[in-house]
């Protein structure tokens, strides 16, 4: 499987994990069967996420203190680039994503001649997506379109692939959940070509409980707007 002439051994999958001990083992087993270079960034978990990741992932990094998903992803991206990654993929730790979608994202980079491939659950399929969350995600899509100018069908999907060139231009400064919007801004500003790839997202009781509450939206929006204002 190649993307711009690179094999999957040159692909690094970054998994930011915080207290995912209940599911991380299954996620990493499935993922490691598809891609060898899995980089887990344990964001200061208090459960056994780190130990499990050390056993199952190719690389495990640990934030001594919790810094948020955006910070953990940036750590993983920086590490992957140091290791010589040709493609960097971000993948959620809660079991929402299918590892089979990773090669498809990577292939899309070459096929669509783009530097960023963004997974879209609304072009693809979902299992058990609650109606309230669907509504919130749709609202987030509209907001992201207005804020970043990118015409996307999905705004906050954690499954994404970046060529090395794109990953080098990504510099997530918003440590917590607002990083998803910041990332889209950076893609838009960089002018790098991007594409959307249909992916499957499965919502389990666990991932739904783990996900962001609707009530968190104003806080995330505040951090995002402030981040934009302060640079």
């Amino acid at each position, binding site marked *: 499987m190649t993307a711009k002439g690179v094999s999957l051994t040159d692909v690094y999958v970054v998994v930011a994990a915080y207290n995912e001990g209940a599911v991380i*083992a299954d996620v990493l*087993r499935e993922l*490691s*069967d598809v891609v*060898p*270079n*899995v980089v887990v*960034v344990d964001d200061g978990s208090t459960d056994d996420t*780190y*130990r499990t*990741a*050390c*056993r*199952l*992932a*190719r*690389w*495990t*990094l*640990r*934030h*001594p*203190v919790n*810094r948020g998903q955006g*910070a953990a992803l*940036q*750590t993983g991206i*920086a*590490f992957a680039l*140091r*290791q010589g990654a040709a493609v960097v993929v971000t993948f959620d730790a809660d079991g929402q994503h299918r590892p089979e979608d990773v090669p498809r994202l990577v292939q899309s980079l070459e096929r669509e001649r783009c530097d960023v491939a963004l997974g879209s659950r609304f072009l693809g399929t979902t299992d058990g997506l609650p109606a309230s969350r669907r509504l919130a995600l749709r609202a987030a899509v509209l907001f992201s379109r207005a804020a970043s100018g990118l015409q996307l069908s999905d705004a906050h999907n954690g499954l994404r692939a970046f060529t090395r060139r794109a990953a080098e231009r990504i510099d997530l*400064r918003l*440590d917590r959940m607002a990083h998803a919007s910041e990332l889209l801004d950076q893609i838009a500003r960089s002018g790098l070509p991007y594409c959307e790839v249909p992916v499957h997202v499965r919502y389990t009781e666990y991932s739904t409980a783990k996900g962001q509450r609707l009530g968190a939206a104003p806080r995330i929006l505040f951090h995002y707007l402030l981040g934009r204002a*302060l640079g």
Partner: protein
Amino acid sequence: MTAFQLILVVALGGLLAGTAVAWIKGWASRPALSAWAGLWIVGLVAACRPEATTRVAGLLGIRRGADLLLYCSSLGMLAGFFMMYVRLRRVRTDLTVLTRQVAILTAHEGGGRDGDRGRGSGGPAPAEAGPPPAKGDPETFLKTS
């Protein structure tokens, strides 16, 4: 001079003296200390000559000097909160950078897809990551972090 004015003068005088000491010892930048000293002096004038604030308030279209002080205090506090927030944000950013460096320097190389099938963990951390990497023992790292 009322008792409250006296308290104000003593407190502001103390702050001014502290600022002078900071100036001599070089504890902060001269422009910052000048700004603080200016603030304490304005406070001292307002405490000693309250009628002066009323005159300034009149020039600004505010009826009472006390109102002027209240508005200025409110504005000053809001500006202070904002500056504190910006500074806190900067500290958080620095903390993240530091955390990232620690995480990269102590990267653990594990077994990957064979990790739970007997190959085990414990490979060396990346050479290009720089200074002493953790030798791959998660337990040790957890105890020391």
